[in-house]
């Protein structure tokens, strides 16, 4: 019964979405405010309906209702409750529901925080989002319904893929989707602006916080996915340039470009057309990413052929969204007009370079990800594009972008003088170069890449320090703390996010430069030494988990004869899917991770064992979190709150002036 309620809620939501996607947009076109007023209640109703559907599916999982096909396919009676609930987004159908749920969540947020928007704008934004959700609901209801019944019911479920039975996997998809779908708000703003034909600076200011929040979620989501791969796959790698990862990275690159281009549109009114294009791009890539990962096309292009309806729907949907918005763009963008002119050496110029580089990097990732799929689809042979391709393309494109990142914040808008920039930054540059050259030597190993990585990281931090000093010197306020408070939060946000990149680069550089790994055969009582740490293998014992059995190894780790930690890696066997899983044991630390995973059992209780010493690896994810923190700081800036407050009582101007005086 409950699953039917969910199914019915989806159908109702589709009806609401049709109304929300048509009437308010039409109303905005003809100036009918009664039609426009439908948008807000419709969006809220849709949120409520999808919430009901989502909870129904959750209930089916909690209740172990194996008469629901999706529940039977992705869970099992032995599976603990929290993983049963996480199994909602464990496969294709449920993750589409999660996607739609998050879309309506963002819609709901737009209805809450859009009092300051003109009514035509708001109704167009909600209308566009309604159209997107209409597409997803149609998809779910026609070809991938999570509530489909299995009659007769299965006696037990097929269980969630053991790889996904992990706390990281519980939170990673919702975070990632918050990011993906968050770009739909930026997209809807862009389409609404195109429809209305008024892309002024106000438009950029309104959509900036939304974009930044989405970007923060996406950053954290990707970092969590990478961290999950690191500890769960047992290979010690943190990024494989796997198509699944690339699918989430491409929207991030486009979104990063968008965040920067919006800054220009907001502050200077420039790059308008480009910003709109980036907003379309970021969302299109999010859609592409969702479908790439969830449609099975990556496993085999021919999976499309086994289920042609799904494939066709996906292709048609992508074609309509991307093609439609680009057509609208081609039609309306010329009216938007260009922003003010600027010299090549100026903040606009630097941000433009940043955008070109980011988009070029995104394009190269796109090529490397899709090209093998195209070849395969056309039966031209099977190839794979390995990590060396991405490494060799990505690093040269990003290095200049990161170098410019240090200079950009110092350049004035419109026109900056190179000699003056050089004068302000010469100390930062000198310190960076010297440290980058000397530091690797002190650490005992010098390679060009090591130096380059450190150079870029130190360059970001030193320029940030110089910039902050200049800011504080010019800020008014008698005391230091007063001056610190006078520096706007958005500036802090930028500094913090940029420093996050620096932390990230340190992590990557140090891991690449100094990590060591060893595959060894270890008898009970035998020791192996790696990175100065001695690992003693004390044999394995059998343990029983809720839905698995495991061999658990014991490793005593010591440094200089003193015990550091004891690690317990496991080799698990999940009987339902008859699957073996390596559960690595990690001793994390600020300066290094120690990582042990069990290979295979050999004779006499010996095992093949994989040992890693990974210096600074946690800085990689730490850097991502710091970036996201920077985004949060930027969003909390006073100017956005002011923008919201200012226009709120647009009808009663007297009340507004009063409130301002009080404030």
């Amino acid at each position, binding site marked *: 019964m409950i699953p039917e309620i969910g199914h019915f809620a989806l159908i109702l939501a589709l009806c609401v979405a049709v109304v929300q996607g048509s009437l308010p947009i039409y109303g905005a076109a003809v100036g009918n405010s009664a039609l426009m007023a439908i948008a807000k209640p419709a969006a809220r109703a849709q949120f409520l309906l999808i919430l009901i559907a989502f909870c129904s599916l959750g209930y089916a999982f909690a209740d172990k209702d194996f008469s629901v096909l999706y529940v039977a396919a992705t869970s099992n009676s032995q599976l603990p409750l929290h993983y049963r609930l996480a199994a909602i987004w464990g496969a294709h159908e449920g993750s589409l529901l999660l996607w739609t749920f998050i879309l309506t969540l963002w819609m709901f947020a737009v209805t809450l925080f859009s009092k300051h928007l003109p009514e035509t704008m708001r109704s167009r934004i909600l209308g566009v989002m309604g159209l997107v959700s209409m597409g997803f609901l149609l998809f779910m209801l026609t070809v991938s319904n999570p509530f489909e019944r299995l009659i007769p019911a299965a006696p037990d479920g097929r269980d969630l893929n053991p790889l996904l039975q992990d706390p990281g996997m519980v939170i990673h998809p919702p975070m990632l989707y918050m990011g993906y779908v968050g770009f739909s708000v930026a997209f809807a703003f862009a389409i609404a602006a195109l429809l209305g034909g008024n892309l002024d600076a106000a438009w950029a200011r309104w959509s900036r916080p939304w974009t930044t929040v989405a970007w923060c979620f996406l950053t954290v989501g990707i970092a969590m996915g990478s961290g999950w791969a690191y500890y769960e796959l047992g290979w010690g790698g943190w990024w494989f340039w796997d198509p699944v990862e690339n699918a989430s990275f491409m929207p991030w690159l486009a979104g990063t470009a968008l965040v920067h281009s919006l800054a220009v549109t907001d502050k200077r009114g420039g790059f308008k057309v480009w910003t709109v294009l980036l907003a379309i791009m970021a969302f299109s890539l999010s859609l592409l990413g969702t479908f790439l990962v969830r449609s099975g096309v990556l*496993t085999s292009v021919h999976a499309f052929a086994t289920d042609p309806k799904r494939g066709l729907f996906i292709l048609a949907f992508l074609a309509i969204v991307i093609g439609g918005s680009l057509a609208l763009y081609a039609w309306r963008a010329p009216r938007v007009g260009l922003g003010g002119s600027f010299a090549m050496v100026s903040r606009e110029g630097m941000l433009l370079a940043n955008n070109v580089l980011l988009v070029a990097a995104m394009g190269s990732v796109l090529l490397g990800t899709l090209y093998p799929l195209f070849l395969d689809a056309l039966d031209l042979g099977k190839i794979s594009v*390995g990590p060396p391709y991405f490494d060799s393309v990505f690093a040269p494109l990003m290095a200049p972008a990161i170098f410019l990142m240090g200079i950009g914040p110092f350049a004035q808008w419109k026109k900056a003088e190179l000699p003056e920039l050089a004068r302000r930054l010469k100390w930062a540059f000198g310190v960076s170069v010297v440290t980058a050259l000397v530091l690797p030597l002190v650490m005992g190993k010098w390679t060009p890449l090591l130096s380059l990585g450190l150079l870029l990281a130190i360059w970001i931090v030193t320029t940030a320090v110089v910039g902050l000093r200049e800011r504080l010197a010019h800020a008014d306020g008698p005391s230091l703390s007063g001056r610190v408070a006078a520096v706007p939060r958005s500036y802090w946000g930028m500094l913090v996010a940029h420093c996050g990149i620096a932390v990230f680069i340190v992590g990557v550089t140090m891991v690449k430069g100094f990590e060591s790994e060893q595959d060894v055969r270890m008898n009970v009582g035998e020791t192996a030494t790696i990175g100065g740490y001695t690992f003693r293998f004390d044999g394995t014992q059998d343990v029983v988990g809720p839905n698995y059995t495991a061999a658990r190894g014991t490793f005593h780790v010591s440094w200089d004869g003193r015990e550091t930690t004891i690690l317990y890696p496991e080799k698990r066997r999940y009987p339902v899917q008859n699957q073996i899983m390596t559960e690595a044991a990690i001793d994390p630390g600020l300066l290094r991770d120690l990582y042990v995973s069990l*290979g295979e059992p050999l004779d006499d209780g010996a095992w093949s064992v994989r040992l890693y010493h990974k210096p600074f690896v946690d800085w990689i994810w730490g850097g991502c979190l710091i970036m996201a923190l920077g985004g949060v700081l930027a969003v909390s800036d006073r100017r956005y709150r002011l923008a919201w407050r200012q226009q709120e009582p647009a009808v009663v101007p007297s009340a507004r002036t009063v409130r301002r005086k009080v404030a």
Partner: protein
Amino acid sequence: MKPRHKRFVFIGLGLLALGVATVLVLNAFQSNLVFFFTPTQVASGEVPQGKSFRIGGMVEDGSLVRENDGLTVRFSVTDTAKSVPVTYKGILPDLFKEGKGAVAQGQLGADGTFIASEVLAKHDENYMPPEAAEALAKAKASGAQQSKSLVVPQGKKESL
């Protein structure tokens, strides 16, 4: 400079950046594409010498031998028509089993042994790497094999 000239300079720089990126990409592409071959193709000498490529198929039953160091393994990958001996030093993935699909990446040694630098087998009991499934399907299609017991599992929906 007039604004129009400036715009030309900008567009020029943009194109230059794109050009550089294209050159980088194509260069890297050419040197890093990894092609896939079936054991039959390996046996008939269609594979590149001294270049890394992938082979795929089933791990032949009874072919897995572990050397005394506990890490070096030898096995044969077959598409049921031909089989290729493979050596690999390292820890095999969790789902590597005799009679299951596997894909190996590496180079062909002088003695015809494939020296794998990487062995892939996915984390799913019924899942067969698409390359391996294709190798088997191809061999089957060419009529080169007579085995009746061969079942090529359907590529299951990846749940990642």
